[in-house]
């Protein structure tokens, strides 16, 4: 099984829409690799609004997003949509 490469984005200290725009810029750049399952993006943010806007936008783009609560904020994992 191919190992998935993780791209990390730290937008802690920033607020929406900057967190969203920064995430979308990386998602656009790596869209092919994300869709193929080679790459996953992990976004660290302390902005709660971002936990709504980022997953919302990513899902509309046909990808998946999972939000995990962490001690100092949130971790949003973005990856390819699983084929059913």
């Amino acid at each position, binding site marked *: 099984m191919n190992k998935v490469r993780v791209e990390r984005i730290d937008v802690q200290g920033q607020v929406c829409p900057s967190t969203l*725009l920064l995430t979308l*810029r990386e998602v*656009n750049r790596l869209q092919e690799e994300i869709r193929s399952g080679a790459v996953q993006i992990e976004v660290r943010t302390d902005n709660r609004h971002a936990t709504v806007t980022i997953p919302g*936008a990513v899902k509309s*783009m046909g990808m998946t997003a999972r939000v995990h609560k962490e001690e100092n904020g949130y971790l949003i994992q973005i990856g390819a949509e699983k084929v059913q």
Partner: protein
Amino acid sequence: MAAGEAPEVELARLRRENAALRQRDAELVDYLRHKIDQLLKVIGTLPLRAEELDEAELVAFDPIAIIAGTFTQILQTQRQTNLQLKAARDKIDAIYNAVGAGIVVLDREHRILSCNKRLKELFFAGKRRVTGRTCIELMCRSESPPTGCVFAKVMASGLRERTREWFFEERFYDVVGMPVKDRRGMVQQVVIVYHEVTERKWAEHELCFALEQAHEAREHTEAIVRSINEGMLVVDASGTLLLANPAALQMLRLAQREVIGRRLEEIVPPNGLAEHVAMACARDEAGEPFDLTFSAPDAQGSRLFQARFALLHTSAGVVRGAVVTLREVTRERELERMKSEFVSTAAHELRTPLTSILGFSELLLDPQTFTLAERSEFVNLIHHKAEDLSALIDELLDISRIEAGHDIPLMREAVSLESLATAAVDFFRHSSPPHNFDLRLPTSPLVVFADPRRIAQVFDNLLSNAVKYSPAGGTVTVRLTPEGDYCTVAVSDTGIGMTEEQVKCMFDKFYRADSSNTAVQGTGLGMTIVKQLIDGHGGVVAVQSAPQQGTTVSFTLPLWIGESD
């Protein structure tokens, strides 16, 4: 421009130009931020604040390109989703129309939202427009829902409902209804599926009818089998008993539970029947049944059966068993034996006097001179033997009348019973000197209304038997006893007597108690005729006997009451 004024003017101009450019730049940045904010609003996020990205970073960051790239992916995803949805819808439509059941979707007001091809075939054939019209208008055509309406049941319960064998327009359906609810749980639509089960229903009905008929036929057959007098056994190809009718069970003296499921050789005596059945099945001797006679010994002695076979075959022609019918022929065989014996005896009895007649008549024809006395004696002997022959033939004629169901004709008159008894006893005293005869008469006269010739015949038969079966020197007693309106005549001897079995058969035609003793003459018809004659006079014959203890045969006759019939 003056030399001293040019730099200040140029500077002022440049300042003004710069201000305008700054203004223009600010307006462009504002425009840019405004558009970026519009796009951010579209993707559902907050507007961009100035402190988040300054003008230089705004251009370098290029949010519009980011959002444009995002929109491109969103649109691409939408297109793919639409294609998938279309494919799914096409698939559902194909299933919807290919499924064998009729499917209809109704809204809360019974309006048809959609239906498949099968439903149109079932209920809406010939109707051009269906969607938008109500099921009440197109199907039920009644004010209230029909009994078992699934739509009504689903709307009432909010749950999946079913109606089995719903009858509509001469056909049967299994109907299932499913609710489609909104977010508040209210039923907005009902999906109803109709499975036509008419053929299944009629098949079930026909099966029930066929089962009833099969049951009736089986009962009919069993009644026939139970009612026939012959014993019937049905075995399978391995010789296991499958059926035995009551007649067979009675013959075998076994109960139903003792025989069914057991092998034939365990049930019937070792008489070869089981082996014959096995051989018949193995050889498949189909077509003509064959007879087999065997004995079935029991406590009362041997019984003879005639067994007939009929083989049973499967539809493929393989032997699957046999039907054995058992007919008891014990009595039949006995009668055949007695008839055969009678013919032999009768021929002998007829031959004996005929021989004397022929012999003496031949002597009379001889030219040799005989004295008159001798010739007269020969004629007397011929006459006597002719009388014997005549009596024998009379007996045969009497029997033929009895066989034909006619009574022996009686010429009745008032006659003295003592005189008849005395004449009979005197004859035997004379003709049978070795025996003693004791005649006991009552003190008062006994007159009966009877045919004297026939009563003499009765006396002759009884005394003849008493003499035949008594040793020389034995005593034969004839006793007449009046008893009320009747008189009882008893003829007793001290002879060999008879067994119970012999007593039972002594009035049967052709029966001879000692058939092996050819020295004792007789056709076996005498007692049959005696009984018929006494019955004809309104009397009764009775017998008491025991081996080596003699025999007493008695008969009653009604006394003459002074009037003739």
